[in-house]
């Protein structure tokens, strides 16, 4: 087995060449190229209607594409019988409605169909047992699949696919209707199978799950590939904005260490540049609130590793960071102040870094903010300082204000801009 595996690893298992397909007048795939290496777990991500399912249906031979071809281990899929394709590629559907209450074992046994002749009613028990055990479905082998939970049923369908003994697994939204525990169970199992030598191509709706379990992501929208590569390189604000038409923030999930994507409702940019100095809870809340309100943002100084830094980076705000746990030196402070000078309003928070902002007035309006609620215990109550003389009205508007809520912060910023 190993002897066969060595050279085969260098071969391409699945190659998609210039694939285009239309349903009627609607083009769903437009010149898609894709190469999947053996032992890779590739996720197709992208909005509904992007062409993910159509691409999968071309790879497993269900669909005959208008243009281009899919090549499996050197042979075009179009030249293979459906039986021959299904010996190489097994498909796990989203959820199968199975009629007539077949048992788990009967369903898994159907995976042997491509290997048996019509009159061969033998039950190839070895691959079936292996598939049942590998997917931990052996304990409900005699139960009707209709009685199983969604996650269990998905594992049965995976077992059916394994009984086909394919080299490639094609999964169409295998976790779409599952609870979170079953989602990670199913995808974890697929990832394990891939590490054991299978190749998997899955359409996955959930970007976080795709990033967590797959080696490579392929971002599709409108039938074209927008980005491909590692999860970190594909899940960027720009690529996601192109594909999904909405703004997103990509951060690193602290628990899994993989990218996590948060999407935001349509954000309409408003005039006005705001600089946030100081991180912590206040800094983070100030950045999020102001960004969602549509302001152009910059930030700094912020200590490295502060959660506000992560957010500012995810929102692509120009940011000055300084080494944490030490007083901020002049170099970092000056750099931050340079950004601040370009802003119309400066928000100084009670978080780390905020104390470095000089008390001397500059030409920008300035607001102090303590948005941490009870977490700001021990800090001086913040006061809003007036503008340093450009506009008396602005000075009056913000003088002696203590901004302790995000609503008050927004109102204060808008006041400063209106009068400025």
């Amino acid at each position: 087995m190993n002897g066969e595996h060595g050279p085969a690893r260098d071969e391409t298992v699945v190659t998609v060449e210039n694939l285009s397909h239309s349903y009627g007048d609607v083009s769903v795939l437009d010149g898609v190229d894709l190469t999947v290496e053996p032992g890779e777990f590739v996720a197709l991500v992208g909005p509904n209607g992007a062409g993910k399912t159509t691409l999968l249906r071309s790879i497993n031979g269900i669909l005959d594409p208008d243009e281009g071809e899919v090549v499996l281990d050197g042979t075009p899929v179009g030249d293979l019988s459906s039986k021959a394709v299904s010996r190489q590629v097994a498909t796990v559907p989203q959820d199968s409605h199975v009629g007539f209450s077949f048992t788990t074992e009967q369903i898994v046994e159907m995976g042997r169909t491509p290997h048996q002749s019509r009159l061969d009613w033998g039950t190839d028990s070895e691959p079936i047992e292996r598939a049942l055990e590998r997917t931990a479905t052996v304990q409900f082998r005699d139960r009707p699949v209709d009685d199983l939970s969604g996650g269990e049923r998905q594992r049965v369908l995976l077992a059916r696919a394994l009984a086909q003994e394919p080299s490639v697994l094609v999964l169409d939204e295998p976790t779409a209707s599952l609870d979170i525990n079953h989602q990670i169970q199913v995808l974890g199992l697929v990832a394990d199978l891939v590490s054991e030598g299978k190749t998997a191509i899955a359409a996955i709706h959930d970007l976080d799950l795709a990033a967590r379990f797959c080696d490579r992501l392929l971002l599709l929208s409108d039938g074209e590939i927008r980005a491909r590569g590692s999860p970190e390189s594909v899940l960027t604000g720009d690529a996601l904005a192109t594909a999904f038409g909405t703004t997103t923030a990509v951060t690193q999930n602290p628990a899994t260490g993989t990218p996590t994507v948060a999407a935001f409702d349509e954000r309409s940019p408003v005039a006005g540049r705001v600089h946030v100095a100081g991180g912590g809870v206040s800094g983070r809340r100030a950045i999020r609130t102001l960004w969602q309100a549509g302001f152009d943002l910059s930030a700094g100084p912020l200590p490295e590793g502060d959660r506000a830094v992560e957010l500012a980076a995810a929102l692509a705000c120009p940011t000055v960071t300084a080494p944490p746990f030490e007083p901020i030196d002049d170099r970092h402070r000056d750099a931050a102040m340079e950004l601040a000078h370009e802003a119309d309003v400066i928000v100084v928070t009670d978080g780390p870094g905020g104390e470095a902002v000089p008390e001397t007035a500059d030409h920008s309006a300035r607001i102090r903010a303590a948005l941490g609620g009870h977490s700001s215990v021990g800090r001086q109550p913040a006061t809003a300082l007036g503008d340093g003389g450009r506009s008396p009205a602005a000075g009056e508007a913000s003088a002696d204000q203590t901004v302790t809520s995000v609503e008050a912060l927004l109102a204060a910023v808008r006041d400063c801009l209106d009068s400025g």
Partner: protein
Amino acid sequence: MRIHSRVLLWSSVLFAALVCTILVSARVGPVSIDTGTVVRATINTLAYPSGVSLESTRAGLWGYGLDVPVPDLAYTRPFSLSVDSSDQVIVQELRLPRILLGAIVGFALATAGAVMQGFFRNPMADPSIIGVSSGAAVGAVAVIAFPIAIPFGLQTAAFVGALVAAFGVYLVATEGGRTPVATLLLAGLAIQTFLGAVISYILLYTGDSLEEAILWLMGHLRWSSWGDVEATLPLTAAVFVVLLAYARDLNVMLLGEEDAKTLGIDVEWTKRILLAGASIITAAGVAVAGIIGFVGLIIPHIMRLLVGPDHRILLPTSALAGATFLVAADTIARAGPAEVPVGIVTAAVGAPFFLFLLRKREVHAL
């Protein structure tokens, strides 16, 4: 191995039940004959074909026509146990052909029902769903109403009518080589309705033979002959073997067409085979026995409760149970002082039993 031994076990039990039912049925009638005599007379009836000759049959319309050669089999009977000659005649010429034909028709209808329910993934499906029965009825009623002479007369007309109707439904529902099941169902319904109108119209002109036409439409085995058995047995057996060979494909088709394709099934081809097989086997049964309802609907449901949904075991067990059921029902139909059409018995017995299962939630969906 497991599936083989289960099929064998269930089939043996049901076959034994069928043989018992046949023997009991052969005792029943205006003249009561004891079991020993029935067994001996049945053994005497056993025969094997020993030669073929061609006979001419007149074919034509309103007296004009031509002679058509039809093959006729000669039989040799190896046994001659001592049986009273009148008992031998009653068993051999009156009861056995009728009982065997009932068994064959029940076998055919239940097989077709099991295939259709699986094919349509619909518990309401039965063999008539693609217009087979209505087509047969048009052919039969036309022959009864008008003096058309063709070989085997009514049976041929019904058989051809059934296949033409089923093929018509298939053609209407097929576009670009694909036959969506839902379209097939609706096309079948529409063509059934249309053929119903044709039947009603012909019935207006049947005159004196109206009773015969009505009896045919109700389903009957009264005019059974060895000729009917000879025609239906090989056809039914051959089609059954083909359908059984596609039993596993039918299982996989139940996962849905898309899944079946990913498991390497040639879906459109399999659908054609299943439809053609179920139509032919139903047409053969309906042509000789008229429209007998409910066998094709309830027998597969009952067997599915007992043996599960795997068609490799469901098809043979449904077929044998259908044969047993129809023989028993026909025995009841002819046991009373006045014979009633067997279709009335199957519906009268079958429908309440089906409702009972439905209320017990034993039968609900697929």
